[in-house]
């Protein structure tokens, strides 16, 4: 939404009342932002070419050796596969569910206010609280096993079992994101002219058709923007959740690329190598963004 507004109000190009001197007001903010956010990002592209065995030791120039090692590292290959599984299972399910949820909320049926409040709750919870909540919910004596126990099922240590750890991570990611995205979709859909839906009603369209044939094409750009943001958040943000839930385990069942960047750079003190992986993550991010934008572009 913000983006649309930016496009709608171009900087006063007409030149009426322009005061270039006022640009100095932006200097502290811009310098601050460049120094602490953009600067470190650029530094990544230098550090990736260093052999740096930890914060305390002196770095040596390593050329492309970090990248060469990356290509043949089976742990990286495994992390790429896990990242693809995590994204592939999370994104389509979450975006389709939340679009349907947004359409539903926008019908403003009785009770929609309270539903909206509930959908918002996960957006208020920090990664560490989310992680600890599910450590407890999925733990050996947690909520899920308590419910299963009532039906005489022995239950399982969901996060410590290599066949259920990744599905659990996927489920938690969807749990935490679908409701909030649904509320965002509902805000976008409420800006659609009701006459358009009324016309579809006259043509005898049901909700299912209105949802996919009317609402989706109109809001496809917004669908694309939210998908891109969710993609970035899932791709880069999985490290925090994994750190609390599984630390990449059991074995390497939940090692994603973002987790390896954190693990190598922070715990294992392989700083240069970790940043080479960081560049790989960054490239995947850009390729993914461009792909999503191509797929979800307005076609009218």
């Amino acid at each position, binding site marked *: 939404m913000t983006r649309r507004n930016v496009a709608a109000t171009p900087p006063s190009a007409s030149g009426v009342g322009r005061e270039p001197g006022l640009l100095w007001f932006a200097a502290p903010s811009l310098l601050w932002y460049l120094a602490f956010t953009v600067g470190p990002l650029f530094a990544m592209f230098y550090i990736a070419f260093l052999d740096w065995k930890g914060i305390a030791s002196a770095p040596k120039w390593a050329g492309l050796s970090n990248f060469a090692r990356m290509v043949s590292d089976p742990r990286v290959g495994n992390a790429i596969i896990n990242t693809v599984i995590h994204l592939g299972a999370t994104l389509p399910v979450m975006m389709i569910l939340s679009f349907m949820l947004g359409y539903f909320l926008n019908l403003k049926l009785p009770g929609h206010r309270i539903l909206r409040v509930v959908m918002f709750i996960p957006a208020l919870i920090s990664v560490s609280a989310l992680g600890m909540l599910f450590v407890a919910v999925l733990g050996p004596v947690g*909520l899920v096993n308590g419910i299963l126990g009532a039906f005489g099922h022995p239950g399982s240590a969901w996060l410590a079992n290599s066949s259920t750890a990744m599905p659990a991570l996927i489920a938690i990611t969807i749990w935490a994101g679908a409701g909030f995205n649904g509320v965002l979709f509902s805000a976008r859909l409420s800006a659609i002219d009701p006459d358009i839906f009324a016309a579809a009603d006259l043509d005898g369209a049901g909700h299912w058709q209105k949802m996919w044939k009317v609402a989706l094409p109109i809001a496809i750009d917004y669908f694309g*923007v939210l998908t891109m943001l969710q993609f970035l958040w899932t791709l880069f943000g999985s490290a925090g959740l994994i750190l609390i839930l599984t630390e990449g385990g059991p074995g390497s069942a939940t090692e994603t690329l973002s987790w390896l960047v954190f693990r190598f750079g922070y715990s294992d003190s392989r700083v240069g190598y970790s940043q080479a992986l960081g560049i790989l993550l960054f490239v995947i991010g850009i390729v993914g963004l461009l792909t999503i934008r191509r797929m979800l572009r307005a076609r009218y």
Partner: protein
Amino acid sequence: MAEATGTIDRQATAFRSSAQAMPSPFTPGIIVAYLAVVGYALLLVLPLYWLFVSSFKPSIEILSQPFVPTFTSGVQNLVEVWNRLSMGSAMLNSIYITSCSVVVTLLIAVPAAYGLARAGGPIAAIMERIYALGFLIPGFAALIPTLLLAIKLGLFNDREFMILYLPASAQPLAVILLTQFMRTVPRELEESARIDGASNLRILWSIYVPLVRPGIATIAILNFIGFWNEYIYSLVIVGANAQRRTLQVALPTLQGNQGITDYALVCAGTLISVLPVFLIYIVLNRRMEEALVQGAVKG
């Protein structure tokens, strides 16, 4: 902006009443959808309800009667986890970092937005483009280089580095959103002040700031939630030292000491950590939702 939403609301109301003129909105399809949405809502609420009731019972009851609000152990779990994690000082650290960071964010973003909104010209457009690119930089990407920067500055393990870093990470959204608000202020308002010889700073403070207060509130709320909930930078840069760590860093240390996790304590600790944001949500409900929806582009 508020006016536009008002129109949309009215149109939506008109649409709704015309829909109600038809037989009933509850077709079989809608009933199925309603049940599915309520099911999902229960899936969201259930773990939190369980977390709440589990915080007030001994571990043994958590498994045997998960949903019964027994309140057997009173506030014992809460007191124990509070002491074991030194949550008092963790809470103070979180308050210190969050409030200073919100203040710094606004102190640099408000003048920047005023400058960009009023200066115009190609340089302002380029600057705005640079901020917009910031939306696409996920916070996590530069974690390790930022850690190195903290070490270089001699601020490793210091809370103060977070007060430098967090406002920087918040600038793109804050500046762009506030610039939009500033553009809606009519130029005529400041002309008489200018004739009276008021300085730019004076005009910003006494004309613009009062008029863009909703935008400032939005940014303050968004950043309060974001800064309060920040985890991985706080962990890596400030560290887990019990005197300096934030609430979010303290909480996960409950897990797996010698492989044993006391779930009653986990529930109690998590409850304490989410309580501040939830309490504020109860008070600021509508405003907070609007803020989160407006700021969603930042993700």
